Every structure is written in C-alpha cells, then in structure tokens.
C-alpha cells in the first residue's frame, strides 16, 4: 500500500477547510488558508479557489489569472473545473461556465447539484443538445420530483426530440396519476397541455386531439382546451365540429376578433355572397349586442359600392357618437384606408352634424372631435387638411374647454405642423387639469422632450417616480425602473441639442471670443456624452432582460408552467427586435459614425494651439464648474455615478479605448442581424460597417436583404458604392472580389 505524502494531505486538508469557509462566505479566513497552501507549492485547487475568493472580495483584476493557472496545472481535476465554472458564471460568461461545469461532471465530480447549475447555463446559452444530457442525468439522480421530469421533457422539446419529450411526460403522468393532491392540479393541467403542444409541434394532430379529449378532466384552462380542440378539428378537416366550438368560444368572449375569423374559415364564407355574410354577423350581433366585433367586421368586407355599407357604417358611427364614445374614430379608422369608404363616412358625419342641435351637448363635442380626427387622418396624404383638423379641434375646445383629450389631440396636430414648443406648452395646459393621470403626464413629458426641454420633462415625470428623500429628481428611478421610452426620447433630445450646438460652433466667425467658443464646445461635449450615455443605458437594460431569464430556467420547472416558459424563451430569442432597441441602435450609430469621421480628420490635422487668457478664463471656469455641478446632480443615472455626463464613454469612443469604434458598433449590430432581420436599418448599418471593414461578402448579404426594403435608386447607389470600392481595393484577395462581383450580378441582374 502506498501512503500519500503527508504534505499533500495537509494541503488538501487546508483546502477542504478553505472551501468550507468559502461556502460560509468567510472569504478572508478562507484566503489565509489558501495562501498558506500556495506559499510552498502551486496547488491547483487552491489556485482556482483563490481566483473565486478574489472575485468575492472585489479584487476583480486578480481573478481570471488564478483560475487559468489552476486549470493549466490540472485541467482534469473536477474541483478545479467546478470552481472555474462558478467563477465564469459570476462574471456572466455563461458559455465558458457551462464548459467547465460540464468538465466537472465528465471528470467524475460526485456533486450532482452541478448538473442543475449546468442545465441552467445550457438553457441560457441555448445549447439544447447538451441540455438533454444534463437534464436526463439529473432526472436519473433525482426522479422523485416532477419538476425534473418536466425539465427533461422541455430539453427534448427544445432540441426538437419530440418523441422523447412526449414519452418523458407520459411516463411521469402514469407514475403520479394516483398520488395527485388538490394542490398539484394546476401543474397537472399545464403539463397535459404542454404535452399536447409537443404533439402539435411534432405534427401529430390526430394524436394531439385524442390526448386532449383523454386529459379533458385534468385541464383547468378551459379556454385553452376549446381553442386547441377547435384548431385541431379545423386542421383535420372537420369544419362542422370546429365551427360549433368557435361559436362556443365567441360566446365566452365576443370581443376576440380571431374567433370570428376562424368561424368564417370553418363555414367557408369566402365564396358566400356579401349579403349572406352580413346576415351571419347580424345574427351574431343580436346574440351579443354589447360586442363591437360583429358590428365592425362587416364594415371591412362589405364593399363601398354595396348600399348595405352606408346603412351599416352609419349605424355603427352614429350610435357611438350619440353615446359619447371617445374612441369612435379610432374604432372606425381601419376601415378608412379605403378612400371610397372614407368619403361615405365623411358624408354621414357631416349630415349628422347638421342636425346636432337635438342631442345633448356632449354629442356635438364628440362629433367635432371626430371630424377633427378625420381631417388629421386625411392630412397624411394631403397636408392641407391639417388646417381643417385644427379648425375643428379649436371649435371643440371652445365648446368644452375642460376635456383633456382635446388638448392631447390639438398638441398632436401642432407637433405634426412642426411646432414642437407650442405643442409641449399646450399639452401641459391639459395636464394641469388632471394631475393624477399618468398617461397624460407621460405624453406631456414626451412632448417636452421633443421640444428639447429636458429639464421640464424631468421635473414633470418626477411627479410619478419614487423619489428618494434626498433625490433632486427621478432620473435614477427612471433607470432602475427601466423606463426605456423616456431614456430613448431624452437621448434623442440630447442628440438634437448636440447637433444644434455643433452647428452653432461651426458657423461662428473666426475671430470669435475664445470664451464663447469654449462654452459651446463644452455644450457640444456634454450633450453628446449624455446622448450616448442614455442610449447605452437602454442597451444595458436589454442586457438585463437577457440575463433576467436566468432564474426562470429552474423557477418555471418548479412552478409547473412549461408552456409559458417555452413562450418566454422564444420571446427572449427575439428581444432585440423590439422597436425601441432598434431605434436606440439607430440613434447611437449616427453619433458613432460622426465620431468616426472626426477621427479620420483628426489624424491628418495638427493639434491646434489654444491661446490663453488666464484671468478671464479662470473666472469663467469657476462659474462653469458650479453650473456643471448642478447639472450633474440632475442627470446622474445611479447613486455616486462615476461618469454622470458620459464624458468617459465619449472619450473612450473617441480614443478607441475599448477597441475600435466600428468593431463595437458591429457588435451591437450583430444582435439586430440575428434577431431584427425585418428592419431596414439593420442591413443599412451592416452594409456601412462592413464596407469600412472591407468585408465585401457581408456587404453583399446586406444588400440582398435590403432589396425589398428600400427604393431602387437608393439600392442602385449602394451597389455602385460597393462595386467601386471593390474594384479600387488592392489589398483584397482577387477570389473574393470575383465572388462579390458575380454575387452582385446574379442578385441584381436588372440594376
């Protein structure tokens, strides 16, 4: 028998002790022991543990090096692997963390909880293939929890391994069937429906229907049961039975437009006469007199030339106007895309207005409001109607000056006319009549931001934020509450101000007083910095959205909500296609390109010497610093913000401190390319950036995606730009040039 050397065992003992202390969050004591070990020998486990301890102690620059040393020394040691996994998880490098946790498992770690952590990481990085293994292994280890079965099934489902997913769920169901408590029934219901989803995704509709009926007694979500059943019947061609269920669904919720549309598909109304279709809806409207849909839908399918249209639309609009429904216009708006229908509606309302005296005064008011909105709608194709719209809203305001909606609408007209300042002041008049309405408050704030009045906007929105005791405004709250619309609008306002000051600066005559020049320069920098900072705040929030999933990979299993979990995963996969994110990237990239252009110019220019006028400058500077301090208090995005004015982010971008500015932009754009393929800006950015980087194949790909998103002249110009640069480029490989030229010729043969 070989005895282990005493030294090693002493070290291992120390390490075990240190590990215990680490788990108890006694990091300093733990570090002492680890350092004792490392004094004499380089002990792999201790090295990695030191990395983790340093992280916990906030010594962030001395973590990864220790982790790497530990791995280098003994990369097959499961303890080292595990600690490395823990470290990479805490710095949110999930790919690396998953890799090392998997290594820990593969190297025989007895700690089965690693499988749980590993599966969460694999879900986060969408490594579904390996996820199935880890979830299955964890299930084998702990088959006593239903959550583990559901977890394995989800893994199989996401990996499109439908049979395994289905059999896993069926198996646990048969095991658990006789032991179900009342408190398990919700989970049971959700799991049955989830099992059904899997069958549907696998394309096995008849089996899905069969199971749905079998599980009917378990299913609590009756709405889902009915919708699933109707959908299946329809796909299986049993329209008659499907139509009966859609009628039931309409009865449950007569305001859901989809049920009506599906009913029509089942009944095969596409080759019915208009009159017959209208009769169907008349009948439905009699059954559900309070529902809007059966009254509204016929207005869409009855052609304007049919005399039924006029009588129906007249009944629809006038009954609402007489009841004083504020949303009358919004309700009818989808129909008005048809110009002939619009004309008829206009005539009806005009005629009605002629006899308005017999009704109570609010009817007149709502009708005037309607006519103003109608003209605003027409102004989209011909701006001369804007004045008409204004005339009617003024009449309405004179009639009922206390109705806030009218103020909102008049401000909207003013905004469309480009009078942003008047619009913001006028909407504020409306706001003052109802200070507790958050919607009106938010609208007013938005209008002030459009008018670049950021201070006033901040003052008003702060009425609705938490406002800590010592806070001067709600700026920090808006960041923690992730108020993306406000951050984006304010970023755009700062950006407009920066461009405005930049223009002023550029148009100054040469002999302008230095003080004025410097003052303007500061203003440019501050507004530019703040614009970037606010845009980046939204980018950061989207990062948080992605990280927020993390807890749900295990939470949803415990709660027994697999259906909603899978939906969330799919939503998260495209979270960067949210319009506000795309808008932020658009705004941010504009400023970045400007900085990039300046960089190019600066390289060629000599630095300009600044004359000094000390005394005067000092005084001005003191005054300026005071102003700056006040400003900082107002714009801080977190407590003790280290970069309140975005000066550092701006400088980092200007000096390429965190890597090349174009590379950084490409990074941001890549999320759009993966998730927001339908946006023009995605591919415009991709084209522009890759052209700078001389990545011509990627430019070609961008152009192909732009084909049906921009007009032909624009496209032509871009193609020309690309082919010009390709042919002038002498450093690029000829083969690549050929590919691009051929690609252009085959993708755009006519241009």
């Amino acid at each position, binding site marked *: 028998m070989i005895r282990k050397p005493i030294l090693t065992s002493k070290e291992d003992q120390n390490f075990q002790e240190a590990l215990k202390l680490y788990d108890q969050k006694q990091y300093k004591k733990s570090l002492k022991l680890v350092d004792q070990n490392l004094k004499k020998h380089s002990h792999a486990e201790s090295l990695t543990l030191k990395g983790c301890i340093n992280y916990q102690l906030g010594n962030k620059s001395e973590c990864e090096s220790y982790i790497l040393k530990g791995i280098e020394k003994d990369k097959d040691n499961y303890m080292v692997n595990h600690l490395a996994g823990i470290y990479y998880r805490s710095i949110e490098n999930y790919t690396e963390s998953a890799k090392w946790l998997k290594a820990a498992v593969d190297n025989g770690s007895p700690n089965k909880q690693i499988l749980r952590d590993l599966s969460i990481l694999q879900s986060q990085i969408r490594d579904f293939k390996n996820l199935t293994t880890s979830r299955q292994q964890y299930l084998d280890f702990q088959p006593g929890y239903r959550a583990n079965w559901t977890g394995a099934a989800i893994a199989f489902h996401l990996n499109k391994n439908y049979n395994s997913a289905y059999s896993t769920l069926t198996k646990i169901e048969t095991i658990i069937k006789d032991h179900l408590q009342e408190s398990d029934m919700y989970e049971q219901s959700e799991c049955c429906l989830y099992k059904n989803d899997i069958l549907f995704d696998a394309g096995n509709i008849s089996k899905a229907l069969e199971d749905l009926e079998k599980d009917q007694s378990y299913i609590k979500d009756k709405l889902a049961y009915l919708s699933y059943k109707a959908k299946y019947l329809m796909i299986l061609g049993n329209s008659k039975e499907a139509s009966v269920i859609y009628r039931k669904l309409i009865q449950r919720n007569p305001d859901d437009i989809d049920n009506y549309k599906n009913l029509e598909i089942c009944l095969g109304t596409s080759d019915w006469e208009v009159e017959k279709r209208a009769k169907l809806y008349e009948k439905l409207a009699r059954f559900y007199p309070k529902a809007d849909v059966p009254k509204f839908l016929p207005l869409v399918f009855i052609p304007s030339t049919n005399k039924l249209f006029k009588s129906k639309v007249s009944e629809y609009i006038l009954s609402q106007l007489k009841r*004083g429904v504020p949303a009358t216009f919004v309700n009818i708006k989808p129909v008005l895309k048809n110009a002939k229908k619009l004309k008829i509606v206009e005539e009806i309302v005009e005629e009605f207005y002629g006899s308005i005296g017999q009704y109570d005064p609010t009817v007149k008011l709502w009708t005037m409001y309607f006519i103003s909105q109608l003209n605003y709608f027409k102004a989209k194709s011909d701006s001369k109607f804007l004045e008409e719209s204004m005339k009617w809203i003024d009449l309405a305001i004179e009639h*009922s000056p206390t109705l806030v909606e009218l103020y909102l609408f008049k401000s909207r007209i003013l905004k469309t006319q480009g009078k942003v300042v008047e619009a913001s002041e006028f909407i504020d008049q409306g706001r003052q009549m109802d200070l507790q309405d958050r919607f009106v408050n938010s609208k007013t704030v938005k209008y002030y931001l459009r008018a670049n009045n950021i201070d006033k906007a901040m003052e008003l929105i702060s009425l609705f934020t938490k406002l800590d005791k010592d806070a001067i405004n709600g700026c920090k709250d808006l960041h923690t509450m992730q108020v993306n619309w406000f951050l984006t609008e304010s970023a755009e306002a700062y950006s407009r101000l920066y461009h405005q000051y930049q223009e002023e600066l550029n148009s100054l005559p040469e002999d302008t007083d230095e003080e004025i020049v410097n003052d303007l320069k500061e203003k440019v920098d501050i507004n530019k910095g703040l614009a970037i900072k606010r845009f980046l705040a939204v980018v950061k929030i989207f990062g948080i959205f992605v990280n927020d999933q993390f807890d749900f990979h295990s939470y949803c299993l415990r709660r027994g909500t697999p259906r909603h979990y899978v939906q969330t995963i799919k939503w998260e996969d495209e979270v960067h296609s949210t319009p506000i994110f795309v808008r932020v990237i658009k705004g941010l990239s504009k400023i970045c390109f400007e900085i990039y252009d300046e960089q190019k110019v600066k390289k060629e220019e000599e630095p300009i010497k600044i004359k000094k006028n000390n005394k005067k400058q000092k005084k001005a500077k003191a005054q300026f610093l005071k102003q700056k301090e006040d400003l900082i208090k107002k714009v801080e995005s977190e407590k003790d913000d280290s970069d309140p004015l975005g000066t550092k982010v701006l400088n980092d971008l200007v000096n390429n401190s965190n890597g090349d500015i174009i590379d950084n932009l490409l990074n941001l754009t890549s999320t759009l390319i993966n998730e927001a393929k339908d946006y023009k800006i995605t591919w415009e950015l991709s084209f522009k950036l890759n052209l700078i980087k001389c990545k011509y194949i990627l430019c070609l790909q961008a152009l192909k995606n732009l084909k049906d998103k921009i007009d032909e002249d624009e496209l032509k110009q871009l193609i020309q730009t690309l082919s010009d640069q390709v042919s002038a480029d002498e450093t690029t490989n000829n083969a690549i040039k050929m590919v691009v030229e051929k690609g252009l010729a085959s993708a755009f043969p006519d241009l």
Partner: protein
Amino acid sequence: MPSINLDDLTTNNLGVFKKIFGVTLPIEYSEDWYANSFDSDQIVKLAFYSELPVGAMKAKLLNIESFQGNFDNFNTSKLVSKSIPNAVYLETLSVLESYRNLGIGEKLLNYLIEETTKRFVHEIIIHVHVENTKAIDWYKKHGFVEKELLKDYYKSKGLTNPDAYILSLKV
C-alpha cells in the same frame, strides 16, 4: 339621459376649477384665491355632466357685519376668527356656456343650500354685476331677492359699468 353629478375639488383637479372660471367669468381671480379653496371656511364643488367637468362653485362662510367694501378688499378678506359666521357668501358659480339650462347650476345651488343649513347658517348672499341680467334673473328665479346696489364694486376690475347688486336668499 346624461347624468349630472357633483364631486369634490382636489389638488389634482384644481386646474379644471381654474379653467371653468377662467373661461366663464369676465374677471380674473388671483392664485391665492384659488389656493385658499381648501380652507375650512370654504364650500367648493365641481359639477360633472356625463363625467365631463362643466360647472364649479366656490363660497365661504362670513359674518354679515364684515360684508362691506369693494371687490378687492372683499375677496381677500377672511373670516375673523372670533366673529361667528351668520351668512354664506357665494363667490362664484359658473357653468360652461354649452352646458347651460340643463339643471347643473341648480344642482350646485341646492348643494350650497344644504351645506349652509348644515352649518346652522340661514342666509346666502351674492354680488352680481348689474349688466349681467341673465344671472340676476336666474338667481331671482331661484328665490333670491335684490337688496341694494353697490356703486363701483367692480371698479378695479375695469368693467364698463362697475356697479353690483347684492342678492340674498334666506334658507
């Protein structure tokens, strides 16, 4: 039939209150005058027609002995703490022009009468501009009697004929 309801004035809808008086009255009141609406000697109310605010009323308790002077010193004076209130002075009562003759003013007035008697006070008095015959007729219709003519009451406000009638209602 559209409903007519009364509701309290709050700090959040004070703007509506100002708006109604602003568009219906020929004279402007000061910010202070609006701000004291929440004092304990005040009787204020808003009237809603189909949930739209269209009418407003503001009155205060006072002692009839102090009932003198012209518009300015009168509207800024407060009830002297020691004197016992024995009348309610109706400062303003307005309904938006488009919503008149629908019973809204009457509802406000009835509320005021109710509040007055609750406070064991038995007289409501008002000033009305002599030219405002519509208002004078309206008040008379509702039981007010003409007491005297005050010369130059509205002089500081620049009205063409600055005299005012005092009308009174015993309740």
